[in-house]
């Protein structure tokens, strides 16, 4: 019952999205020298709409868009390493924050479960 709570669902969804975002940054950095590669980005608009009602979060449907506009290198690749690198670090911070929240949830339950013991 505890583990079905919405808090866990939201945090889990957040972790999955952060993971996806991280993989996209890694993919972009991995393809920094691939001719014709277009930088990918995760679009959060529709996902946030879903997340505002936690009960609806069942599957994550992420919208991945390719950046066609930004100025490309002569070989058609438009990965910006600085942007990707900062974005990657951002996902790390976000991931850590979510993990701390999950720990916090478990702490709450263990506090409740132990309140008669001490």
């Amino acid at each position, binding site marked *: 019952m505890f583990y079905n709570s919405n808090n866990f669902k939201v945090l889990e969804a957040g972790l*999955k999205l952060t*993971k*996806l975002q*991280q*993989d*996209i*940054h*890694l*993919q972009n*950095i*991995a*393809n*920094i*020298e*691939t*001719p014709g*590669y277009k930088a990918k980005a995760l679009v959060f608009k529709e996902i946030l709409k879903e997340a505002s009602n936690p009960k609806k979060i069942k599957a*994550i449907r*992420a919208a*991945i868009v390719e950046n066609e506009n930004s100025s490309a290198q002569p070989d058609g690749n438009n990965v910006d*390493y600085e942007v*990707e*690198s900062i974005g*990657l*670090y951002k*996902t*790390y911070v976000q*991931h*850590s924050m979510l*993990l701390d929240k*999950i*720990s916090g949830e*478990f*702490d709450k339950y263990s506090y409740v479960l132990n309140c008669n013991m001490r």
Partner: protein
Amino acid sequence: MAFLGSLDIVGSALTAERFRMNVILQNIANEKTTVTENGEPYRRKQVIFQERPLSFKDELKKARGGVQIAAVVESDRDFKLVYDPSHPQADENGYVRYSNVDTTEERIDLIAASNAYDANLSALSVLKATIAKTLQMGGK
């Protein structure tokens, strides 16, 4: 495998960049090679990278992605002709055909490959920190 699948993305890039560096070094090493197995001078080799698609739809089930080597192609640029009649490989006019490698170009490519390798290494350190954090999930 989703959890450790991200490592494959970085790993594939490190492998690809390392391979590219090897090819560049091979080119530089063979700059003065006048005869190869097929009888003509050494031809400059170039690595072609290709994206290994990341399946985002079921990303958490089977994480792939990264970069792969599509092909290693040989340059068909003209060989360098050097006048050196005393060379054993010289033709009847006294010219020796050397490889079509331009070392300046190769050195610049080497720097680019090395920088891309470093970029992936620093991405790897962030990823490692994330994984270490994840393993402590639920702890204090």
